[in-house]
């Protein structure tokens, strides 16, 4: 813990913090903090991997650019968190992204869900961006200076992602009959994976003051979603929550395919640099 605090003078929140700066800082988190950073990094990485697919396929060119920006922000967050996590075990961001097996990933099932149509992607974006926004808003006060610094940069970016998702939820929900049908369907398909995001476990409980307890974010999430849905004339669906387990390495069937694609080239050339 004291090692982490040492970075406070070198990484100032607000200054564009780059993964390279974190790599150069050499600050070594404890194994537990590393584990926690993996969760944050893996969510961002898998989401970026999903969103990257949209570039060249979006409903309008302006939206190619918008989704591209969001994916780029997420990959930036992933690199920062994974670089920091890697320091706990003398691994690089790429060791972690490309050479871990499926059960070593710590992403939530939500970000692994397929893109589906634009409405389903927006539903997923709505949930993850609200969650990440609340999470990073708290994480800026973490006792771990590096996590706090990454969160300080990330929170402004995910605030924009949240706005983007909300704008589209309104348009799709209140646009045409077709878009409304699709928006409702997208929300239905997404909601089983909401619960997992807010589950506490031993790791986060043990990191009091460093990690943000997911359960503490639920009330804000519900209030925000409720307010938006009331404006969009939508209802929070009553669907059974899926059993999660992503934080413990038990993933949806989708992750295997995501990793197969993401890791194929790096694994063909182990030890190579790019």
């Amino acid at each position, binding site marked *: 813990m004291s090692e982490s605090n040492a970075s406070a003078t070198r990484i100032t929140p607000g200054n564009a913090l780059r993964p390279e700066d974190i790599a150069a800082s050499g600050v070594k988190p404890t194994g537990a903090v590393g584990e926690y950073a993996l969760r944050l990094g893996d969510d961002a990485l898998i989401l970026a991997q999903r969103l990257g697919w949209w*570039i060249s396929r979006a409903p*309008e060119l302006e939206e190619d650019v918008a989704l591209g920006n969001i994916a*780029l922000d997420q*990959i930036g967050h992933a690199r920062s968190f994974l670089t920091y996590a890697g320091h706990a075990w003398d691994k690089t961001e790429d060791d972690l992204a490309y050479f871990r097996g499926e059960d070593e990933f710590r992403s939530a099932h939500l970000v692994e869900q397929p893109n589906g149509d634009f409405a389903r992607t927006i539903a997923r974006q709505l949930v993850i961006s609200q969650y990440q926004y609340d999470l990073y808003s708290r994480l800026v006060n973490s006792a771990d200076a590096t996590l706090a610094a990454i969160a300080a940069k990330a929170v402004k970016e995910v605030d924009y992602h949240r706005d983007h998702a909300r704008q589209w939820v309104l348009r799709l929900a209140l646009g045409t009959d077709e878009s409304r049908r699709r928006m409702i369907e997208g929300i239905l398909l997404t909601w089983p994976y909401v619960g997992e995001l807010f589950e506490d476990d031993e790791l986060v409980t043990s990191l009091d003051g460093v990690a943000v307890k997911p359960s503490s974010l639920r009330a804000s999430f519900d209030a925000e979603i409720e307010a938006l849905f009331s404006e969009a004339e939508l209802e929070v669906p009553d669907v059974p929550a899926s059993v999660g387990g992503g934080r413990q390495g038990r993933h949806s069937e989708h992750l295997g395919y995501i990793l197969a*694609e993401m890791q194929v080239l790096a694994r063909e050339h182990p030890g190579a640099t790019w």
Partner: protein
Amino acid sequence: MTTATDTPQDLTAEQEQFDRLIAEDSRIEPRDWMPEAYRKTLTRQISQHAHSEIIGMQPEANWITRAPSLKRKAILMAKVQDEAGHGLYLYSAAETLGTTRDSMMADLIAGKARYSSIFNYPARTWADMGAIGWLVDGAAIANQVPLCRASYGPYGRAMVRICKEESFHQRQGFEILLELSNGTPAQKQMAQDAVNRWYAPSLMMFGPPDEDSPNSQQSMAWNIKRFSNDELRSRFVGMIVEQVKTLGLTLPDDQIRYNDATGRWEHGPLDWNEFKEVLAGRGPCNAQRMERRREAHDGGAWVREAAAAYAAKQAAKRADQRDMTVKAA
């Protein structure tokens, strides 16, 4: 106001004004009178250029999910995203000539519009990301820098913005190849193979030899084009023949030489027959590229309609509220 109501006498005066602006190497702006052929030529050229940016996203987007490091993934995403932006700048420039983006997009999807045929070649390996950046973007930049001074204002302005952003594209491609060339034997082989495949198509990006490019002369007279196809190609060959040495790779052409008499770089023969075939739609990826664009456009129609419907409803709501306020007052 428009040409339909102009008397022949006005036309002559307008033509004189246009000719004078071109002769002074000044700029033509959207509201100026311009010969119909000038408008048509520009609309065709700028929209083809925009289509090329948009279709050109595909071969590289193909590797975003498989990029072998997170840094490369971020760079590639940013680059492909830039291309969407460049397409947008160019469509905007073309729109000032009186054709809407919708109708240009409809032409592209209907297979009536052309785009740079190089994007109909497949990006088979990661090294293609390097070769596309170095050779394809390199050739594009060589072509585009003079276009910053194109006589049509909006086109030149779009090109200035694009050229500024493109310079990172070529460098990142060069660095991908350099990294591969200094890597494992398998990586180096991958890099050489990519250069071998992209070399000739990138030279053909400059268009047919001058003697077979009848439209070029008029474009040069109008100050749209500043250098001939062969001039630009030769200049490009001169640049890459040096750069390839730094890469530690070779170009698949043993006939490259500098001709002292003409002051030009010369290269081996290019297969113009293949060029025509690909242009005519019989390249390796034409069908795939068109299918993907069509899917994105048609598949996104419901989203665009939803946003338009929402905007209309909101506008109506605001109008209602205004009415109520007026009545209340």
